[in-house]
């Protein structure tokens, strides 16, 4: 584990992508095949099955550290990571060992079959021979969420360097439903018939936010415009008579959207469509919170299937007749896709996302202004002659989002941040006026600079009126502009509304308290955009 811990330390200590890639490539050059396979798995979101619960971990860690459980629990939100909290709290190890990464993963997997007292003894024994960094990684293997500053893309690049393979084809190879239990490093890297894995999606091509005016993109006739839908980006795959649905986060979501099983009746085999999964009211998408109700569920109750049926608004054809089309220009892929989808009946769970005609950037800007009426968050601009690239690449695909909605609100509660911002107040609750009362309506965490967070932290410390556990009620004084992407009615909230993606967009030093918005203003926004 020492080599893996050293890799982690190097990668964690630098913000430079080139250094991270170098360190990973060096690891891939020296580690055993098993350790390499597990490293690829961990950095692509695969992890061993959880052998103990986090509740057990907490209890055991508190016990070994000689502190009450509540004290560990109180430390956790401040550190921001349970694996780290435990690693930092445990007493120093009594001995040293250097067993490989795969050993510890195998050890964790073997625990599942043992009874709880034995499991506990084995975990404590592991802690007692690992240094704090190794313990952190060991705990991470149990708790999951292995986000340590290495994206799948970066890992793929390093692996491509170490094995002298083409990065794009390696990225494709690493997708799909494999696990370290079902393959070996050799098979994963060398298997000739990669297409054999019929569920394998293509790496998604991701758009950049358009910062400039669109006129900077050149002539309008080189571009295709579509609505930017507020759904889930997904690929629907039909191969060998079965179907698979992948989300952009590379999560297999086939079971969550049973509607797509019928696609086999509508579409030819050997087809992969890229598009937006949305809940469909028959004419346009439902607001995102309707879809959200479905995302959380692994199996979908009948009523929800009926009330919030999903469809794919397809905008790209990546595979047709089993042939990879990604190198064709977009307009070619698009016309092939239209030809396939054109003939489908209206009740098919897939529709071609309509392209939006425009002659000039000005007419397109007018179209964009009506996006909310179409339940869209703005526009997508795609260069007509562009191939389908992988990952986020600048140049051919842009999202041109609507400006967010905003409201000026008063800060009334503050809570200390965690992780990155453990020593600052970063989590705030905001209120609007309802007559002479301030009604809380949203929380927001992000949007301020570190310097602003430091200023507000000093202010909160001096202006606390009451404490409720970690939450401090502060003197109503500061007004912030809260930006958000959507709004909907919510009986669960005191204010009766809930916001989508709220964040602090501006500290309104210029606004006196009395000029913050009112609950009626919010209801107005709900009425227009909800």
């Amino acid at each position: 584990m020492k080599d893996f811990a050293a890799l982690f330390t190097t990668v964690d200590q630098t913000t430079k992508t080139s250094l991270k890639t170098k360190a990973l490539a060096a690891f891939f050059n020296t580690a055993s095949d098993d350790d390499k396979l597990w490293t690829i798995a961990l950095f692509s979101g695969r992890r061993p099955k959880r052998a103990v619960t986090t509740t057990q971990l907490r209890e055991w860690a508190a016990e070994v550290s000689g502190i009450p459980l509540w004290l560990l629990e109180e430390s956790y939100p401040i550190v921001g990571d349970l694996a780290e909290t435990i690693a930092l709290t445990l007493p120093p190890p009594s001995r040293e060992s250097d067993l490989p990464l795969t050993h510890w993963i195998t050890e964790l997997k073997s625990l599942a079959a043992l009874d709880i007292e034995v499991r506990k003894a084995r975990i404590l024994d592991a802690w007692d021979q690992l240094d704090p960094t190794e313990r952190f990684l060991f705990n991470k293997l149990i708790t999951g969420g292995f986000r340590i500053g290495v994206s799948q893309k970066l890992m793929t690049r390093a692996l491509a360097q170490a094995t002298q393979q083409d990065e794009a084809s390696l990225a494709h190879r690493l997708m799909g439903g494999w696990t370290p239990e079902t393959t070996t490093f050799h098979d994963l890297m060398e298997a000739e018939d990669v297409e054999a894995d019929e569920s394998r999606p293509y790496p998604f091509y991701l758009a950049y936010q358009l910062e400039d005016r669109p006129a900077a993109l050149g002539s309008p006739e080189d571009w295709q415009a579509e609505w930017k839908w507020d759904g889930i980006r997904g690929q629907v795959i039909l191969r060998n008579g079965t179907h698979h649905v992948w989300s952009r986060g590379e999560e297999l979501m086939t079971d969550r959207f049973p509607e797509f099983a019928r696609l086999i009746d509508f579409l030819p085999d050997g087809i992969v469509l890229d598009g937006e999964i949305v809940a469909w009211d028959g004419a346009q998408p439902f607001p995102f919170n309707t879809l959200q109700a479905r995302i959380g569920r692994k199996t979908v109750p009948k009523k929800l299937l009926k009330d919030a049926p999903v469809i794919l608004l397809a905008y790209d054809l990546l595979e047709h007749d089993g042939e990879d089309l990604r190198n064709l220009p977009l307009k070619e892929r698009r016309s092939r896709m239209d030809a396939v989808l054109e003939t489908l009946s209206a009740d098919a769970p897939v529709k071609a996302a309509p392209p939006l005609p425009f002659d000039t950037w000005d007419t397109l800007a007018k179209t964009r202004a009506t996006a909310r009426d179409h339940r869209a968050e703005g526009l997508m601009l795609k260069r007509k002659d562009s191939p389908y690239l992988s990952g986020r690449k600048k140049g051919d695909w842009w999202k041109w989002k609507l400006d967010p909605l905003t409201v000026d609100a008063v800060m009334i509660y503050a809570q200390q941040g965690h992780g990155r911002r453990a020593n600052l107040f970063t989590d705030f609750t905001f209120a609007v006026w309802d007559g002479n009362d301030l009604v809380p309506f949203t929380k927001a965490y992000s949007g301020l600079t570190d310097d602003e967070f430091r200023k507000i932290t000093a202010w909160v410390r001096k202006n606390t009126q009451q404490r409720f556990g970690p939450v401090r009620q502060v003197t109503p004084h500061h007004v912030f502009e809260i930006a958000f992407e959507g709004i909907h009615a919510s009986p669960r909230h005191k204010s009766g509304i809930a916001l989508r993606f709220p964040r602090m967009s501006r500290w309104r030093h210029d606004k006196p308290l009395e000029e913050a918005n009112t609950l009626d203003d919010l209801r107005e926004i709900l009425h227009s955009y909800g």
Partner: protein
Amino acid sequence: MITQHPTGDMTVLTYLCFMPNCVLTFTDRGIYCPAGDFYVDPWRPVDRALITHGHADHARPGHRRYLCTDACAPVMQHRLGNISVETVKFGETRRLGDASVSFHPAGHLPGSAQIRVEVAGEVWVASGDYKVVPDGISEPFEPVRCHSFITECTFGLPVFKWDDQSDVARDLNAWWGKNAREGKASILGAYSLGKAQRLLSMLDPEIGPILTHGAVENTNDVLRQQGYHLPDTIHVTPDLKAKDHPGALVIAPPSALGSQWGRRFGPSSTAFASGWMRLRGVRRRRAADRGFVISDHADWDGLMQAIRETNAENIYATHGYTDIFARWLNSQGYNAEVVPTEFGGEDDEAADAA
């Protein structure tokens, strides 16, 4: 427990004591001793201020008379300019009204003190900031027995535990040596009073030249004149040429890292030294190449050791995770209370540099 009674435009809050003798009280100007009519580290102007140490959140400008140790005075005068200061030696007792006061080493930085106040046999100690392990440059912490102890708890969580200074020194010098071999300057961000000098005393001057930012060097000058031993340093002046000092280590205030000032040294590796570097999240926010975990404050075990050794029954927690720390102390059989927030105000810079 807290009563509020408005007096003019200022609200005076008094922490009610259940003890027959309330030696120290908490007011909105800071810790106050009614028997001696003085304040400890007050944060609004007062007539007489007893100062534990020279950090900006403890030694503030605007008081009529200051009293501190002779070891603390030069830095304080350097920072606050023309002020009226009386000094005492560590351990010397001074009578103020009905109170006897004395100053005892806090081990936080050179010249830092805890203040012991005795009134009619009742003893209170205000710790200021402290750490219990010797650092080779500050007067080592001395436990002072008392009935009531006002303790800081900046790092009052069990996740905060410091490695031995010698281990950190080894890592620090290894980092510097590696950078020097790779032709890079090593830029180390550290608070200019205390942390910077402690780091200086940990460095191995054989590795290369040590350069200092003006804010650090000014403090060095004051401490050297007092007789504190520091390795030789070169002050970075506007006309200093970085290439004349290959393999240098540069100590500068955190704000200078990543600024125009830092760019003059060409290819460099940056590091930051603070107790907060123990947390991965804070380390990443700082976005320096390295984070060295080294603090002028006591870690969890250090706080507990200090509290034990005072033999105090009553503990007042201030500065830091006070609620959690007081709850823990109560579970351990102490009478612990949180000093209300208004009085636990931390200077952001100092809190961040801890």
